[in-house]
């Protein structure tokens, strides 16, 4: 329409999810996530109330379960010991959440929706448990490094499949990553199931992997290693956050990623290769998620049962983490802490069942996640027309000389 005036509203109408989120971050952005979390908790509290429980005591019980009260100087004695144990659990849960959150956040910054965190995490877990249970004679540091590198590579490769599909044939990454999630689950169940190639040969009737050898386990720095103490995976996760930030804000790759995420048209006009960026981004996201799998396996799980594979949902929690954290480094850490605390605070181990049943609490957590993501969804107005490839938008192509007419 040649007569359309150029006015600010027009520019707003074409912003990308990353762009809109950016304006939130700048505009006193911490208020909105806090508000979002608050609203979600209030609504959940209402549900608790309606179903005949006391939301205040319930939330207090959750809080006690998180161990965050350890931070308060007035907690002492037995309470303090319990709190310490709980806090260790919280932080153990937080570390991988940070990483899967980064896996989703990085993609969002590039304008992509990575729902495949679960599959990428599994890819990392599988490779970690596989190589962690071999080479038991290896020197500690070397073994750990080897396993981590391989797990990251596995995650990157798994995500890379979706990236390549998007870059070459324009396959929608939402669908392809969802499919890859489930493929990873079933491949995992197959690998460690009865008669599967990686099943623990010592327990032929149990569908479980071999155990990770001592030489690959991550050292514990707080708490008792035999009682699932807090392992150095937390530091690995935090270090990765720094890498995420540096990559995004200080490297040319990150510059390209952000440009493409904010305005693929302008990025193209500057000569950036948008398609290649998508592959790079997905691979990096997969790396983060695979790393999460590795630190869980090497840090506290030490083995993978088919049941674990089928019930794991950390990848999806990562979506809530990233969205609540507005896809930034610090936001992801904070949101991961929140959800990690929620997860451990409502776990069988930490929650006092006389106040609130842990299995109920687990479902309440799911609802809170859902509410958070729902509220955030309105921020993420996606005009994905700029990033649709062939499968969903047949008109979006640069005509080239000898292109065959695709039907």
């Amino acid at each position: 329409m040649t007569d359309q005036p150029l006015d600010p509203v027009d520019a707003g109408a074409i912003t990308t999810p990353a762009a809109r989120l950016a304006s939130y971050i700048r505009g006193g952005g911490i208020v909105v996530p806090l508000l979002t979390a608050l609203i979600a908790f209030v609504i959940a509290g209402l549900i608790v109330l309606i179903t005949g429980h006391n939301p205040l005591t319930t939330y207090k019980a959750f809080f006690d379960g998180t161990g965050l009260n350890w931070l308060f100087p007035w907690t002492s004695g037995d309470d303090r010991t319990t709190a310490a144990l709980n806090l260790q659990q919280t932080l153990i849960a937080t570390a991988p959440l940070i990483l899967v959150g980064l896996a989703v956040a990085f993609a969002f910054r590039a304008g992509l929706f990575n729902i495949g965190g679960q599959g990428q995490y599994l890819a990392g877990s599988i490779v970690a448990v596989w190589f962690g249970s071999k080479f038991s004679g290896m020197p500690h540091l070397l073994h750990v490094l080897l396993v981590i590198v391989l797990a990251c590579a596995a995650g990157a490769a798994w995500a890379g499949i979706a990236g390549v599909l998007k870059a070459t044939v324009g396959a929608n990454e939402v669908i392809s990553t969802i499919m890859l999630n489930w493929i990873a689950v079933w491949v995992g169940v197959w690998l460690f199931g009865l008669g599967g190639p990686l099943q623990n040969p010592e327990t032929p009737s149990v569908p479980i992997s071999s155990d990770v050898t001592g030489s690959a386990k991550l050292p514990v720095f707080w708490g008792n290693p035999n009682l699932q103490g807090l392992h150095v995976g937390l530091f690995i996760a935090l270090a990765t956050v720094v890498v995420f930030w540096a990559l995004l804000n200080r490297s040319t790759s990150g510059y390209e990623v952000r440009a493409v995420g904010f305005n693929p048209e302008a990025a193209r006009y500057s000569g950036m290769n948008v398609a290649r960026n998508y592959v790079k981004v997905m691979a990096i996201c997969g790396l983060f998620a695979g790393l999460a799998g590795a630190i869980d396996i090497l840090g506290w799980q030490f083995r993978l049962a088919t049941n674990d594979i089928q019930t794991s949902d950390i990848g999806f929690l990562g979506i809530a983490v990233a969205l609540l954290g507005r896809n930034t480094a610090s936001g992801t850490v904070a949101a991961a802490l929140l959800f990690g605390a929620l997860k451990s605070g409502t776990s069988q181990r930490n929650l006092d069942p006389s106040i609130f049943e842990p299995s109920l609490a687990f479902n309440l957590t799911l609802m809170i996640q859902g509410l958070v993501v729902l509220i955030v969804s309105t921020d993420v107005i996606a005009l994905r027309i700029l990033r649709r490839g062939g499968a969903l938008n047949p008109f979006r192509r640069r005509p080239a000389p000898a292109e065959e007419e695709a039907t």
Partner: protein
Amino acid sequence: MTLTRERIGWAGIALAVIAAFIAVPPALVRSPVPSIVLAVLAIALGIYAVPGDRRLGWGAIVLGLLAGLGAVAATKSSSGNLRDVFTWSALIASMLRFATPLLFAALGGIVSERSGVINIGLEGMMLMGAFFGVYGSDLLGSWVGGIVVAVIAGGALALIHAAFSIHLRADQVVSGTAVNFLALGITGYVFVDHYGDNGTPDNISRAPDLNLPVLHGGFFDSAIGHLNLLTWSALLLVPSLTFLMFRTRRGLRLRAVGETPRAAETVGVNVISTRYVAVTVSGMLAALGGAYLSVGFVGSFNENMTQGRGFIALAAVIFGKWKPLGALAATLLFGFSSALADRLPTFSESTATLFQALPYVLTLVAVAGVIGRSRAPGSIGIPYVKE
């Protein structure tokens, strides 16, 4: 008949299918050689067909590979095992049972997506139907009541998705994902709160099977003589929905809204209300699928009972190119692979597990455009902005 590359591609596919089928009952050729030869031929024809019609060519190559591998595996196992697994009548019945929930949800997905709204939340809506079907049946004492409650629950969840996607112009994928979480949480919560450790009662009223005595036993009786009422409903829904979508006014307008909403608005069709209705209906249909699982088939509810079936249904929508008949074909295919996976444990536990991944692999291939270009409704995923 001219030998175009396209025809050769089809020939390749046909050969691959034959290669697979001769290794299993009733043909039961025990040597892998014929199958391998046919499979290799299929692949060769596929390679030749690629420059002419990329999707057919690649389809033949992929199918040839799968058929060859499958045939080799089949010949390695005993005939007894094969006969156990490939009891076709039982397989067909099983296939239809597995396909039913998928079909309901897929049909729902088609309605929603045809109006231009992506519905990732099919899984959640299905789950709502599964739980509230049992809940309703228990509370109201009849399976009909259960179905009604299930449909209402699914519709309500869909309404949330609709409100956020259409009115608040939220990202439809995020909103759908959120709705899945919500459904998991709500159904799990009410389930634990209401039924506690004992789970749902054993004697809830279930949807009846439709027994067809006219078939007098035999192959057809085992295959389709004892299917659930809901299964038949789903099958009947296919031609009904096809008719509704392509031969009625409402259907025409629905499709116009999904393709080019601005054009529809220009002639006075209300895009917003059409989409609202479509999404709500899709939730109700998905809920029916879930209700079948609990009230029609298993007779109880377990947390996260749907296990990702909603996503398979989404895959069926894409695979079936947004047409009810296509979705039927896709769900039957997926149902078949599940049915096979179900029977394979007698043969090999772990292969059965791998088969579970097949629907997702097939969809991945479809999305990659290798098997048929997936042409979604033109305006899908884009929130509609009235000027």
